[in-house]
């Protein structure tokens, strides 16, 4: 599980590995962000692609909030090597028109970060 409540140790560990690309989501268990998280984890794409969902944005530093978003239902793809955001926005941007999480949009977000 890569759900972060208060303890962000696992997130910090992932951030430290410069081979990684992260998809960071914020939202509760009933949120679109959770559905996206579950879908992305289920894809089991590559070992360097990691997905985290944060229950509270308060676990983030002010800089991180500025970079990735400071409210619920947001997402950001993050390149650990480039230390840059590939794509970010409301979690709804990663949904299809029928409301289901979009694999294509999730992959596109990861790819945007990895192209940096």
């Amino acid at each position: 599980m890569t759900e972060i409540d208060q303890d962000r140790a696992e997130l910090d560990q992932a951030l430290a590995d410069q081979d990684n690309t992260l998809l960071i989501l914020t939202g509760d268990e009933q949120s679109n962000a959770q559905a996206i998280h579950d879908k992305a984890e289920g894809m089991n794409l590559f070992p360097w692609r990691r997905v985290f969902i944060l229950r509270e944005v308060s676990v983030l530093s002010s800089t991180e909030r500025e970079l990735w978003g400071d409210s619920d239902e947001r997402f950001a793809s993050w390149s650990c090597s480039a230390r840059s955001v590939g794509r970010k926005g409301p979690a709804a941007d990663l949904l299809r028109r029928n409301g289901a999480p979009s694999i294509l949009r999730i992959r596109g977000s990861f790819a945007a970060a990895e192209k940096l």
Partner: protein
Amino acid sequence: MNFRHAAGALCCCAALGCRGAASYDSPSSRLERGISFVESDEASRLHPISNPDLESRVVSRVPKNWPIDINSSVKLRVQRSQLAGTEQSEQWLGTIEELAETWGTFTPIIEDLQTYVEFLPEVHEAYLRSQAEGVSSLAHDTFLEKRRRLAGIEGRVTDALLGAGLSEDEMTLIEESAGDFSGLLLHLERANDRHRALTAEIGYKLRLEAFLLSSGSDPEALHLAGYDTLAEGRLQPLDRWGIRLQGKDLERFKEMNAEARRIADAGNRYLDGKADAEEAFRLLSDSTLEPIFTLAADVTALAREFEFEALARRSQRSDAALKVLSESLQAASTELTEQSLASFLEAIASLEDELMRSFETKLGLPQLLIDVQQVRVMIANLRFDDVPEILLLVDNLVERTKGIAKSGDRFSADARERSMVAFDALVADIEDETTARLTALWNNSNAQIEFNGWVALADRVKGVGDRGEEILEQFQRGSTSLPLVPAEFPLPSVIDVALIDAPDAEVDLQRSGRRDGDTLRVRATLVDSDTASAPYTRDFAVTWLGWHARLDPSVILAKPTSGLQGEADFRFSTAVSWLWAYDPRPDEDEWYHEAMRFTDLAIGPHASLLPFNPDKDVEVGLGVTVSLWNGVLQGGVGFNLMAGGDVYVFVGSSLISLVQAVGNELPRSSANSVTPGR
């Protein structure tokens, strides 16, 4: 001009000058749904034809008489799924077709996916090495580089799929495969293969042809890249502002000017009393209207035989001849029963009655005579402004004679056949020797001569009708009748392209010898190994659209209004106007666009040669012209530069529009001209 004349002239002007309105139908056949049209103007701006939305390739309207600019090209977008009829087949086929339609070809995404799948293990390996050797190692940099390349491909694929505008069902299929690009690739390749196999099985090929149709010329086959081996054609842009006339256009302009001068001279001879009205009119009309007046003379002569007294005399003569025949037949044979003889005589008499009634009612002779008489009166009292109405009347007259030709033909053949049947019935039960005697009596009787006289009359009416039809064709050749594209085409150069490979195509009018008023015909045919479908044909009216200008030679009737020449009367003369006009595109539908369409309004400066002062060879005037109905009716005002700037006014008519309307266009030739049967 009285009200009737004015109304007639107005209708005629509108009929001669106005273009047919563009409209469209809904697509109903595979070919109608499978070929969509977009116009690209000379500035490469796109104008929708088959769908108001330029982005959409779906055909929602099938154009009819759709105008396109004379310097434009027409893009033909081929929708293979519609043509192959596979749109209802399984979803993957639909999806792959949608993608192929969107991107032009499906190959790029399959190639991207193939590269991705092949390259992925290499990236995995680089990742493992980077993990083992650490962040500061070369392996880490190598991994990032390879991952960047992989992400580039992945981004292209996802962006393309998301931007394809697929339906939800189609997107579900894609999404379900997209977690694993290897699986997606397999799906796409398999679908592609199946589509190719299906298309091959169907075996359809697409044949696309384009022709330029000009009145009085053979059709010109136009090049469609990928669909024929014709020469591309030399680039021949036409000057939108009508100044830089070249080649045949310049030649035509000079001829029009000379013709204008000749007509003006003829008009002035009439005004000077040197020619009577009919003579002047014949000079004006040259040979174009001559056959019509000959026809009118024939109809008038024929009509004399249908005046009441003439018909009554003929009828009495026929009745008397029938009575004599009846007595002769009875005396010649006792074998004839009274009933059979009465039936025969009644059959012959009824044919005569029927013929007479046909002339009076069915054949519309009374109205024909009224038309003829009206034309003759108008010629005898010729007024220049009656010319449009005369043309309209002549058109009606010739249409009516066409009807007579058909009725006369039917009657003539029918009467002969029925008379034979009646005679056969009369002699059916009589011995051969008696029959021969009776036949001789019939053949030598006045009744037979009378009967044949009636039939001959029918033949003469038919002859007048036939001539009228010929004249009508000759009369209309310049404006309405287009050359036929032979049905037994294709040309030897045509290539039938397998549907799976059928590309979009484009007809470039700038590489053809087109002129305003021509027609672009596009013909599409689905061909399998044995048969060809009924061709789908669309005609586009080639014309100037948007702002444009033209040099317009015209005959004018001018009068000075001030200065020393102010007392002079109207005189015929010539003018050349540089007329500016805006022709709206079919999708422009504001009220002022409609008004422009109806009036064909054009305005511009003119230069004229004025005839007011007999002591001067040349008087030059400059002024402004307003033109309606494509120049059929013009009016203007100007200054006579040779008479101290005296003001004159004029009404006139453009020769080009008149010539286009009554036919007399110069023949043209072209590199790809097509002769029927070639």
